[in-house]
């Protein structure tokens, strides 16, 4: 249990480490075919568990439940403005750094 506590307290470093470890295994190691084939399923399963756990955290937090409407509107504002900012920035970058104004991939 002590090890788990250590892992949880320092989880950010371990997140990066685990992804890098996976990438190294995928790149240099021989990944058996059955793992490659089921990798997508593993990810979906993890996602389901994570979403359930997040749901439980939200559900047991009365204050968040009360604020959900208010939180949703904040969330939508951040994503909408981020998307607009991204389009704007890429447009400027592509205009100045490449010769093709519309993006070379357009047909």
């Amino acid at each position, binding site marked *: 249990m002590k090890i*788990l506590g250590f*892992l*949880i307290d320092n*989880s*950010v470093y*371990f*997140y*990066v480490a*685990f*992804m890098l470890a*996976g990438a*190294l*295994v*995928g*790149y240099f190691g021989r990944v058996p075919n059955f793992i*490659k084939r089921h*990798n997508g399923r*593993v990810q*979906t399963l*993890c996602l*389901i*568990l*994570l*979403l*359930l*756990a*997040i*749901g*439980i*955290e*939200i*559900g*047991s*937090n009365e204050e968040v439940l009360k*604020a*959900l409407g208010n*939180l949703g509107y*904040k*969330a939508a*504002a*951040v*994503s*909408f*403005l*981020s*998307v*607009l*900012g*991204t*389009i*704007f*920035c*890429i*447009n400027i*970058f*592509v205009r100045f*750094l490449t010769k093709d104004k519309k*993006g070379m*991939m357009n*047909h």
Partner: protein
Amino acid sequence: MIVIIVACLAGGILIGKLAVFSLSNITNLIITLGLFVLLFSVGIDLGCNKKALRNIREDGIKLFIVPVATVLGTGFGSSLASILLRMPLNETLAVGAGFGWYSLSGVLITQMHSVELGTVAFLSNVIREVIALISIPLISRYIGSFEAVGVAGATAMDTALPVIVKSNSPDIAIYSFISGFLLTLLVPVLVPLALGL
């Protein structure tokens, strides 16, 4: 996918609301271990894709324009949101820095900051993915292919990839994958960095 997301979240919220004793130790453990497995698995996918990794070397700087501009543009938009919503800048920046990867950014911020901001991050990144999936065909047509890839953020390498490829010529795929790949790598780095500001 959307059905699974909504069902799991709703189910979890119901369990959490009805639970008579605190489950937070268990959920904390599930989240940490679940993310370890998820990230390791995503890492294997990235490492196995040798063609994408080789292209990074060959095509050089051009491949970095989209992810770099996406980071800057998202930061710019999030800063604007901080002013409009009167929220602290580090909070909106951290929420935006999920680039659509809702599972990681929501969990990360819940753990490092608060359940409340984690919920905002989760919702915001789900919304970003939904906006991306719906708008990519339109953006590709009327604005440009690179903009479509950027809007998808980290999802440009998985969920949004088929939509991007369908709406543009097929050679966009490598740009899309690499942009999503780099942004995915940046999420666990930029979110804590933004929160710490």
